């Protein structure tokens, strides 16, 4: 795994003479952000909460300094903006020491990974691949066409004012199991379920069948708030990678997927559930070792947190 302190240093080497916005939008900085998330979750699942709080605090301070620098448009370079420079170096010192003590962080862990994790049902889903929105829309139409009779049956129950509440409930559950966002994403091998949410054919299905549609904002409700998620510069940095270039788009999707997976592990680790940290550590270990995919980790976390309905 790359050393985060070195990654910060590379970002600074490349952008110290540029303005803060250039640093925030750089690929190097996106990588720093992701690696920071991993390190923070690693600390939590190993029971080092005060260290996790420290890097969270310092990363937040750094982002705030970056935001102020971008907003003030003071024309200063990263190296000449003392507040920003100080925040970056504080963060860099901290992660540098944490990286150097990587082995000790593991050996001084207060948490033993859980020996057993739930086994989500294997569905023989196709491998994930990248899609263009147009191709995905067509595939969703085809998916619906192949299940047209079931679709009509569900619709007739849901639309019939004479249907009993319990049969409507059952129909809604079946609708979710057949046409839910994540179900379709898995069935078609879509890397980012978000693309399904953005698909007009799926939005129409969801509307007709009364499925919950998680828009970007709704999906965030109830989750631990990402630090400064609404900071404009970070949004700008996300948009910067949003190009037609397949490789860049793929990298952005994978990064987003990974960050979402890390958020779920963190949510589990910070929950009040019995053996939450042990399970989260086992998931993190499997994820780091490449033994589990993003989807498998998230399904496991959802089952453990008793909200596996989210995966239907």
């Amino acid at each position, binding site marked *: 795994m790359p050393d985060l302190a070195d990654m910060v240093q590379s970002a600074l080497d490349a952008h110290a003479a540029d303005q803060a916005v250039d640093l925030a939008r750089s690929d190097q900085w996106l990588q720093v952000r992701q690696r920071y998330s991993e390190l923070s979750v690693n600390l939590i699942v190993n029971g*080092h909460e*005060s*260290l996790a709080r*420290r890097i969270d605090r310092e990363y937040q301070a750094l982002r705030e300094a970056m935001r102020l620098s971008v907003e003030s448009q003071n024309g200063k370079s990263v190296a000449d903006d*003392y*507040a920003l420079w*100080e925040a970056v*170096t*504080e963060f860099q*010192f*901290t992660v*540098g*020491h*944490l990286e*150097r*003590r990587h*082995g*000790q*962080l593991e050996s*001084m862990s207060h948490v033993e990974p859980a020996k057993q994790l739930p086994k989500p049902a294997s569905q023989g889903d196709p491998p994930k691949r990248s899609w263009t929105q147009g191709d995905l829309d067509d595939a969703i139409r085809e998916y619906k066409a192949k299940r047209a009779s079931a679709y009509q049956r569900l619709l007739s129950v849901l639309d019939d004012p004479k249907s009993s509440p319990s049969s409507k409930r059952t129909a809604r559950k079946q609708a979710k199991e057949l046409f839910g966002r994540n179900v379709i994403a898995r069935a078609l091998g879509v890397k980012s379920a978000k693309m399904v949410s953005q698909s007009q054919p799926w939005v129409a299905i969801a509307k007709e069948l009364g499925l919950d549609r998680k828009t970007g904002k709704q999906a965030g409700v109830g989750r631990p708030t990402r630090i400064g998620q609404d900071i404009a510069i970070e949004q700008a940095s996300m948009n910067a990678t949003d190009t037609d270039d397949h490789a860049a788009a793929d990298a952005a999707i994978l990064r987003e997927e990974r960050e979402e997976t890390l958020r779920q592990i963190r949510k589990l680790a910070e929950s009040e559930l019995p053996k939450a940290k042990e399970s989260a550590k086992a998931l993190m270990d499997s994820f780091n070792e490449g033994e589990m995919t993003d989807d498998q980790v998230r399904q496991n976390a959802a089952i453990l947190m008793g909200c596996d309905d989210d995966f239907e």
Partner: protein
Amino acid sequence: MLDTPETPDTSQWPLLVLMEHFNAWCASARREDFWRDTVEHRLWADRLRDEAKGIIIWLELRGQDDAAAQLDEAMGAFREAVWSFKEACEGVYPANDPGCRDARDAMIDAAGRASGVAEDLDSELPADVWEGFFDA
């Protein structure tokens, strides 16, 4: 044969090493040639921040959060003083500017306080806290 006073070996005690490094920095900053090397002193101050951060991280790793917070606070005050010094001395001929000289003195005071905190903590913390410190 002359008795030579024994110099205590502080190298195994990270807080005492930090204290000595701070004291050396203060002594150098008090000298008149400080004004020729302000950039070098800032880099030196950054090295002290890094060294202190290593100790703070270790203390938190060993569950000594209160001690870590004390050193952290002293280092925060030192960083602020370094910042004020830079602000006060920008655009003036530093050695002749009273505001800049005052800011230098305040910076030395903050470094002295951080050094004192390091010394106090060293005497308060149990020795076994440092087991493994040099193993990284």
